[in-house]
């Protein structure tokens, strides 16, 4: 069965919506938090959406269905960035500034396939920082809150300056992974014909 461009765009919009919803649901230790992207993630998503369309990874929007796919794709990208960017604090400032400065030169060069590969590498690095580096440092940087005759509280304040991190359940990471999978599948659906004809 061959899908038309409009059918692909609608299916991609639905997947982008699912991705956006799942990416914002964070399973913390006692309950569920619902995160909505902020200004940093929103502006970055606009930049990425523009580059994805410009490089042909997303088909250029035309008609209602095409525009719906791009709009939902941008929102889903912002939500996925909310999932992947480090929590607010010094670490986020350093990481986001670094990514923003290098984004244009890194992502605007090369073919759409290379662009998507670069994005995947960026996602791996961001996930590493947020879900591996920060939790490990958190566990080893000074005494726990409320212990060591007040020293733990000072250590907690210092840790919060670096990253305002809250532990998540392992299932929370799985939900985030499903959200990223939905984003990737949707991107594959709106893969531009121009990109499909490029060298492998």
């Amino acid at each position: 069965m061959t899908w038309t461009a409009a059918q692909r765009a609608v299916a991609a919009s639905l997947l982008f919506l699912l991705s956006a919803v799942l990416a914002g649901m964070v399973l913390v230790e006692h309950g569920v938090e619902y995160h909505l992207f902020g200004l940093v993630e929103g502006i970055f998503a606009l930049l990425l959406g523009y580059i994805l369309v410009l490089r042909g990874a997303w088909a250029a929007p035309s008609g209602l269905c095409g525009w719906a796919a791009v709009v939902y794709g941008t929102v889903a990208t912002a939500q996925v960035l909310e999932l992947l960017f480090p929590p607010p604090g010094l670490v986020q400032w350093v990481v986001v500034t670094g990514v923003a400065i290098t984004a244009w030169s890194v992502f605007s060069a090369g073919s759409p396939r290379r662009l998507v590969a670069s994005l995947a590498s960026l996602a791996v690095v961001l996930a590493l920082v947020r879900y591996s580096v920060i939790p490990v440092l958190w566990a080893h940087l000074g005494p726990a809150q409320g212990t060591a005759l007040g020293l733990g509280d000072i250590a907690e304040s210092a840790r919060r300056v670096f990253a305002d991190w809250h532990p998540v359940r392992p299932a929370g990471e799985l939900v985030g992974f499903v959200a990223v999978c939905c984003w990737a599948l949707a991107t594959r659906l709106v893969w531009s014909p121009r990109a499909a004809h490029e060298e492998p």
Partner: protein
Amino acid sequence: MDTSAPAPSPDAAPAPAVAERSELREPWVLPGLAVLLVGTVLAVLLYRAAPQSAAEVRTGALVAVAPDAFTPHLSRARERLDASQRARAAGDTAAAIARLAEGEQEALAARQRASDSTQVRTATDLWANVVLDRAELMLASGAGPWYKMDDDQVLKEALTAVNRAQEAPLSPATKTRAAALDERIRRQLRPGPLEWLPR
């Protein structure tokens, strides 16, 4: 320049509006867009309500579907009670008190929609127990250890809540519980070491 090429006919490429209409007529495009719209509304509602469990989603949906019925509000009140117990187990007293306040409202809503005396009794008893649970939590948070002052304001609010529950027609068990809690709060409100002395 090749002049022999035929000039493009005016209807070779469809006009944008015509193309858009034809793309909407393709199989499952319109139903897909409708599902997308419904999904977007549901996502907004989900994020707005921020449910903490599947049970919260179910009872919230029940109240939304039948806001004027007795049973959905009663289920919602019981579910809020469970949510407060979860918050209390997690050590979040403020959240537990907030969940109980929501449960109180839902039980009251159920009582107002009761259609017979049995339903009135059930809703009233649930409401009173939620109020007493909240007062108990307020007593725990307002009573300081021996070297610290009690938070009299919180204790007085707890006492007012208990007295409010005592005014309603309660079952014997709930009445006994309310009387015991009333006694504990009044004792805690006594100045200094008098709170350890029998009245």
